[in-house]
C-alpha cells in the first residue's frame, strides 16, 4: 500500500531571496516530471505540489519560490525538521520519445525545476533553454551546463545571456535544425507559444502543466486542464501532457 512519507530535511539552501532548495530523505524512486505533494505546516490545510528536481537512492530534491502562505510556511522549516510528503505522483516525461537528434528542455521561472532530472535522463546531447527575469535571479546554470551539451540562458531585461523570451530562443534553435523533441514547463502563455512553435515545425513536444490542486492523487477532480475537449486531471493524467493534446483556448 502507498502512504505519505515522513521525510527529514537533509539540506536547505536559499538560492535567491525568495527561492529555496531542499533535499529530503525519501524512500521511493521517482521519474523526471513527477511531483511530490507537501504538507507545509500548521495553519496551512492543503498540501502544495512541487516538482521533483532531482532524486537518487534515499533522497529527493525540490526547489520552490515563496508565493503565498503555503510556501512561506514551508520555507520556515530547518534542516533536521520533518516534512509529510506524498509521492512521487503523476505521470512524468516520456523520455522514450526523445528521438535521435537533440532534445531540448525549456523552462521559465519555476518551470525550470523539473527539467534538471529530465536533462540528466535525456543524455548528454540535450540542450537547455532557461528563461529568467533578470541576472540576479539566475540559478542552476552550472548544473544544467553539466547535464547538457549546451545551456541557453535568456533574461527579460538582457542583463545576462540572450535578451528576450525563451520561445524566441526556441524558434531560433529549431531553425538551426536537428531538434528532435521539446520538453517544456513554465507559465501558460509560454506553454501556449511552445505548442504553436513545435506544432508548426512538427517536433514532438511535451508540456508540464500547473493547476491548483487538492488531493494530488486523482480523487477530487479539482486540478483539471482541457485536453481534446475534455477535462483531464493534471495530477494523474499529467502533469506532463503531449502538447498536441492540450487545448489552450478557453
Amino acid at each position, binding site marked *: *500500500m*502507498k*502512504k*505519505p512519507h515522513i521525510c527529514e530535511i537533509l539540506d536547505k539552501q536559499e538560492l535567491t531571496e525568495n527561492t529555496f532548495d531542499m533535499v529530503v530523505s525519501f524512500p521511493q524512486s521517482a521519474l523526471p516530471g513527477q511531483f511530490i505533494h507537501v*504538507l507545509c505546516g500548521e495553519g*496551512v*490545510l*492543503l*498540501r502544495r505540489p512541487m516538482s521533483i528536481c532531482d532524486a537518487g537512492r534515499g533522497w529527493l530534491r525540490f526547489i520552490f519560490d515563496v508565493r503565498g*502562505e*503555503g510556501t512561506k510556511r514551508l520555507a520556515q522549516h530547518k534542516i533536521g525538521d520533518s516534512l*509529510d510528503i*506524498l509521492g512521487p505522483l503523476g505521470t512524468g516525461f516520456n523520455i522514450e520519445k526523445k528521438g535521435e537528434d537533440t532534445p531540448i528542455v525549456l523552462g521559465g521561472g519555476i518551470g525550470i525545476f523539473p527539467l534538471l532530472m529530465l536533462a540528466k535522463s535525456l543524455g548528454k546531447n540535450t540542450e537547455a533553454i532557461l528563461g529568467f527575469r533578470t541576472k540576479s535571479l539566475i540559478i542552476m546554470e552550472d548544473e544544467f551546463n553539466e547535464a547538457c551539451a549546451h545551456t541557453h540562458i535568456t533574461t527579460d531585461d538582457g542583463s545576462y545571456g540572450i535578451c528576450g523570451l525563451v520561445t524566441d530562443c526556441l524558434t531560433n534553435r529549431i531553425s538551426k535544425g536537428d531538434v528532435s523533441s521539446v520538453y517544456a514547463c513554465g507559465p501558460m502563455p509560454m506553454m501556449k507559444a511552445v505548442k504553436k512553435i513545435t506544432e508548426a515545425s512538427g517536433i514532438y513536444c511535451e508540456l508540464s502543466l500547473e*493547476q*491548483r*490542486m*487538492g*488531493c494530488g*492523487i*486523482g*480523487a*477530487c*477532480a*479539482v*486540478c*483539471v*486542464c482541457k485536453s481534446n475537449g*475534455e*477535462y483531464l486531471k493534471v495530477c*494523474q493524467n499529467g502533469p506532463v501532457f503531449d502538447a498536441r493534446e492540450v487545448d489552450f483556448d*478557453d
Partner: protein
Amino acid sequence: MTDLSVNIAGVKLKNPIITASGTFGNGREISEYYDLSQLGAVCVKAITLKPRQGNPPPRIAETPSGILNSVGLQNGGIDYFLKYELPNLKRYDTKVIANISGSTVEENCELARRLGRDVDLIELNISCPNVKQGGVSFGTDPKIAAEITARVKESCAVPLIVKLSPNVTDITEIAKAAENAGADALSLINTLLGMKIDVNTRRPVLANNTGGLSGPAVKPVAVRMVWQVFLCTRLPIIGMGGIMTGEDAAEFMIAGASAVAVGTANLVTPTAALNVKNELVGYLEKRGIKNVSELIGSVLAY
C-alpha cells in the same frame, strides 16, 4: 472489543466512518492507500445521467481552515459508473452509497431506478452549490425538497438519504420536509457558498466566481445543524463538515449523528478516513465505551 457498528435506515455499517461524496472519487486512488473494507461505507462522486464536464478551472482555493471548491459534478455518467466503477467497489467488504445529482426531478428518479439494488443506499444531493440547474435550488425550499424526495423515493429500491444544504435559514424545516416526504436518512452538511478574491489581480480565485466552503472552518455550523436536526426528526443522520480527527467524529455523533463522513480531510491525506476511524476507536477505548452508538445524540445540552 468495542462494537463499532451502526445502523442507517436498516443498513448495518460495520463502523460509522464514510467517505464524503466528491472527495474520494470512486475509490480507485484511495484504495491504493488502504483497504476500503475498513470503512463503514463509501459514498462515491456525484452521478448524473450523462457524463458531465464540470466547471472550468481553477476549481479550488484555500481559505482559513477551509477550502472552496467549484468542481461542478464532473463525472462519467451512470453508464460508466455501473459498468466500470461499481464492480470495482463491490470487491470491497463495505457498503456503497451512490450520490445522485440530477438536474431535474425526473433525472434523479431515472438515476435511482437505474441504480436499483446494485448499491446499498442512495444519497440524493439537493445541495450542490456549484451548478446552475438542480443542485442547491432543490434543497433550499421545503416544498421543493419534499416533492423531489417523495418522487425519488418512489423510484428507489434501497433506502434513500437526502443530503441537505447548510445555505438555508432554517435547516429543521428542510429536514422535516424530507422526513415527511419519505426520506430514510439525512446527511448534512454540504458546502456553504463562499468566495475568495485575489487582491493582486482582483479576480475571484475560482473561475466559477463562487464555490463551496468545506473543512474545519465549517465544523461549528455543521455540528449545530446536526444537533438541530437530531432534535426535530427521528431519522438517522450522517454528519459531516470539517471532520479531521476521531474526536471530531465523536463530536458529530454526540451532537446526534449515527454515522459521519470524512470529506476535505481526504484531500489533505489519502488515509484520512481510516485515520479518523482508528482515532475514534482510540477515543472509545480510552473511555471504556463499549458501543459506539452510545455516543449518538448524547450531548448534555444546557
